[in-house]
C-alpha cells in the first residue's frame, strides 16, 4: 500500500508545484523576470532572502522567490516536479551520487567557464562534486565545504589540564584523563547508522592517509588493506571512551550530551559547530584534525562538498537564472555565506571573520576525501551503507575489524572492477 501514499504525495506535490508556477506567473510585474529558487535549507531562509535583496540591487529587473522544503523529502519533491517537466528555475542540488540521479536524466543545464566565468573561483575537487561522471560536465555551482573532524570543549579540556592531541597515543591519554575526572570523553553514539561513517572520517583520516585514497581510486589497494584494518582496530579501541551505552545512543542524544557540556569531544562534521553554538552560546569550542599514528605524519580531515546551485534545463528564464547562479559563485557571496551561516564556502579568496571557522577553512585546504561519499555512493550497496552497518556491527563487538573490512570490500567489489580479483 506504500505506493498509494507515494502516489498521493506526488499528486499533492505536483499540484503544489503547479500552483507555485501559477502564482509566480501572476505575481510577476510587467517587465520583471521572477525566478523560483528551491532549497532544503528552511533554517537559512532569512539569509537567502537577504542575499536575494543584494542580488536585486544589482539586477533590479529580476526578482527571486525562495522556497524551502523539509530536507528528508526534498529529493523526492524535486525529482517528482522535474519528472513532470516543472520545477523551479534555480535549484539547490546535492553532490556526487545524489546529483547524478537528477543530472543524468538531463534535468539540469550544464554550465562551464564560458557561461559561468566565476567557476574559476572554485577548487577542482569542489567542481568534481557537481560533475556528472558520464559526460564530464559541471551541473552546479558548489556552495559548501564540509569536513569531518573532532570538535572539543575548551573549558573541559582546560579544567582537566589537557591539550588537543597530536598523535593517536595522545588522544588515548586525553580520553583516559577525561574519564578519570568523570567526564565522558566522546559524546558519540553509534545507534544512528550514518554517525558511524562520520566517526570514521573524523577520527581515522590521518591514519588512512591520502596515499590510501589514491591507491583505492587507482585500484592498487582495496579495503582489506592493512592501513584500513588497523585504523578500524584503533577505532574499536577508542570506542570504550564513547558515551555510556554508546550502541544505544542516537545522533540527537549525542549532540545533546555535547551541547550540555557533559562530554569533552564530538567526532563529527564541521556543520555541527554552528548548530552547537546556537543551542548553547556559552560553549567555548575548538576543533582538531584526526590524530596521526606517529608524529610527523600529515594531519588530515575528511572533506566533501555538500551540494550546489543548478539551473533547470527546461526553464524559459535561462539568462536570468544564470545571472543569479553567477552571483552565487562570487567571493562576495561566499564571504556572506561563510560569515553568516558559519559554514565554509568553497570559493577561493573569501574573508573569514570567526576564528573557529577560519581554522576549519584552513583544515579543509589540505584534506583527503570523505571516502565513501566522494567515491562509492553511486551504486548499491554504496560504500556508505556498507561502512555504516559494518562499523556499527564492529563497535557493538559483533565482528572483528578484519571481518568488517572484508564485508565492506565484498560489497563494493560487486560493482567496482579493481576489487574483483
Amino acid at each position, binding site marked *: 500500500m*506504500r505506493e498509494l501514499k507515494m502516489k498521493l504525495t506526488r499528486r499533492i506535490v505536483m499540484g503544489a508545484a503547479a500552483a507555485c508556477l501559477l502564482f509566480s506567473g501572476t505575481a510577476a510585474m510587467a517587465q520583471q523576470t521572477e525566478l523560483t529558487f528551491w532549497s532544503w535549507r528552511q533554517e537559512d531562509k532569512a539569509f537567502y532572502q537577504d542575499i536575494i535583496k543584494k542580488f536585486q540591487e544589482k539586477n533590479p529587473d529580476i526578482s527571486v522567490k525562495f522556497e524551502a522544503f523539509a530536507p528528508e523529502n526534498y529529493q523526492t519533491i524535486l525529482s517528482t516536479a522535474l519528472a513532470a517537466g516543472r520545477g523551479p528555475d534555480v535549484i539547490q542540488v546535492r553532490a556526487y551520487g545524489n546529483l547524478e540521479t537528477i543530472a543524468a536524466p538531463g534535468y539540469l543545464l550544464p554550465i562551464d567557464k564560458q557561461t559561468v566565468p566565476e567557476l574559476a573561483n572554485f577548487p577542482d575537487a569542489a567542481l568534481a562534486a557537481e560533475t556528472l561522471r558520464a559526460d564530464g560536465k559541471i551541473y552546479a555551482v558548489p556552495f559548501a565545504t564540509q569536513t569531518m573532524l573532532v570538535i572539543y570543549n575548551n573549558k573541559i579540556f582546560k579544567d582537566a589540564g589537557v591539550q588537543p592531541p597530536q598523535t593517536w597515543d595522545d588522544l588515548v591519554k586525553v580520553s583516559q584523563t577525561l574519564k578519570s575526572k568523570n567526564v565522558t570523553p566522546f559524546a558519540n553514539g553509534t*545507534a544512528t*547508522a550514518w554517525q558511524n561513517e562520520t566517526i570514521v572520517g573524523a577520527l581515522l583520516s590521518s591514519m588512512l592517509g591520502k596515499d590510501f585514497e589514491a591507491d583505492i581510486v587507482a585500484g592498487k589497494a582495496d579495503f582489506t588493506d592493512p592501513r584500513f584494518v588497523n585504523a578500524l582496530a584503533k577505532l574499536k579501541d577508542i570506542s570504550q571512551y564513547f558515551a555510556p551505552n554508546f550502541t544505544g545512543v542516537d545522533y540527537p542524544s549525542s549532540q545533546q550530551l555535547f551541547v550540555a557540556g557533559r562530554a569533552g569531544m564530538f567526532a563529527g562534521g564541521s556543520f555541527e559547530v554552528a548548530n552547537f553554538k546556537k543551542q548553547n552560546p556559552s560553549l567555548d569550542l575548538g576543533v582538531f584534525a584526526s590524530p596521526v599514528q606517529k608524529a610527523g605524519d600529515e594531519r588530515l580531515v575528511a572533506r566533501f562538498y555538500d551540494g550546489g546551485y543548478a539551473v533547470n534545463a527546461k526553464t524559459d528564464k535561462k539568462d536570468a537564472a544564470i545571472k543569479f547562479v553567477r552571483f552565487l559563485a562570487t567571493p562576495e557571496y561566499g564571504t556572506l555565506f561563510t560569515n553568516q551561516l558559519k559554514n565554509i564556502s568553497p570559493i577561493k579568496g573569501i574573508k573569514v571573520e570567526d576564528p573557529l571557522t577560519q581554522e576549519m577553512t584552513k583544515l579543509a585546504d589540505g584534506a583527503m576525501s570523505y571516502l565513501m561519499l566522494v567515491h562509492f*555512493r553511486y551504486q548499491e550497496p554504496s560504500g556508505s551503507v556498507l561502512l555504516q552497518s559494518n562499523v556499527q556491527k564492529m563497535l557493538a563487538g559483533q565482528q572483528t575489524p578484519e571481518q568488517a573490512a572484508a564485508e565492506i570490500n565484498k560489497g563494493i567489489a560487486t560493482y567496482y572492477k579493481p576489487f574483483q580479483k
Partner: protein
Amino acid sequence: MPVSPKQARTWKHRSWVAFLVVPPIAFMSLFVVYPILSAFAYAFYEWQGLARGEFVGLANFQQVLFGPTMAPVVWNAFLHNVQALIALMIIQNGGGFLLAWLLYKEPFGFRFHRIAVFVPVVLSTIIVGFLWKLFLNPNFGIVNQALYAVGLDSWAKPWLGDSSTALWALILANVWHFIGFPTLVYLAGMQRIPSEIIEAARLDGTNEWQLLKNIVWPLVAPSTTILFTLLFIGAFNWFEIPYVMAGLDGSPFGSTDVLGLVFYRTAFGNQSASIQNFGLGSALATLIFLFIVVFASMLTLWLRRREIQF
C-alpha cells in the same frame, strides 16, 4: 413513445444508483487502481532518479528476489516481518483476547480500564514511537532507570542499540500502541455470545480454562478472522514504528530492517547513505502487494471456515 411511469421509475432509480456509485468508483480508480497498476508498470523499467529509462522486463524482480546484493537484504527484512507477525499474533492479539475476557467479566473499575486500554490506539504512531525511543534511551530512559531503581542493574541494556533486543523493543512498543484494538474487538465479540451458553457451561461445571478454550474462543471466531487478517496486512506493511525508532537503515546493522524500510530506501534513497532506484523499489512494492493480497485472501478463507453460526 410515451414513457410509462414504471419505466420512468426504473430510470430514476438507475440514475440515482449511478450517481451514488460513479464518484467513489472514479475516486478509487484514480487514487487506488491507477497507482497500483502504474507502480506495477514502473517495475519493468530501468530508472534514473524519477526519469524512466529502458524496458528491462523482469530484471528488477529478479534482482529483488535473487540478486546477490539486494536479495539478502530483502529476505533478512522479510524474516523480520514474519517474526513481527508471529510475535504480534501471540502477544498483541492473544493478549487482547485475555484483556477482553477480564473486561468482559466486569471487574472493579472496568469502565475506566476499558477506556484506558484503548487510549494508546488513538495516539499518533509517530508520537508513540518517539515516546518509546525516549523510554528506551540507555542512559536516561525510564526503562533502564526503573531497572536500576529495583537493583536489576545487570538487566539494563541499550535496548535499541543491541541487535538481540532491538526488534523486540519495536514489537513491544507496537503492542503497547495497538493492544487496545484487539481487546475492543474481542470484547464486542464476547458480548455477542448469548449469555445462556456461558451460563449453561458454568452449570455443567466447566472451569475457567475450559470455558475460554471450548466456548468463548470458538464463538469469537469472526473477531479472530478480522483481527488476524488485519494484523497480517499490518505486519507486512510495518513501517512507522521501525522508521521512527530504528531509522531508515533498520539500525543496528539491519537487525530491525523490515520490507517497508527496504522499499522506502530503495525507491527514494536514503539521504545519508544510498541513492534511489525507482525500478527496484516498484518491483519490491509490487511483490509485497501481491504477497499480501494472495496470503491475506487465503488466510481469510481459512479463518472464515472455522467460524460458527449462532
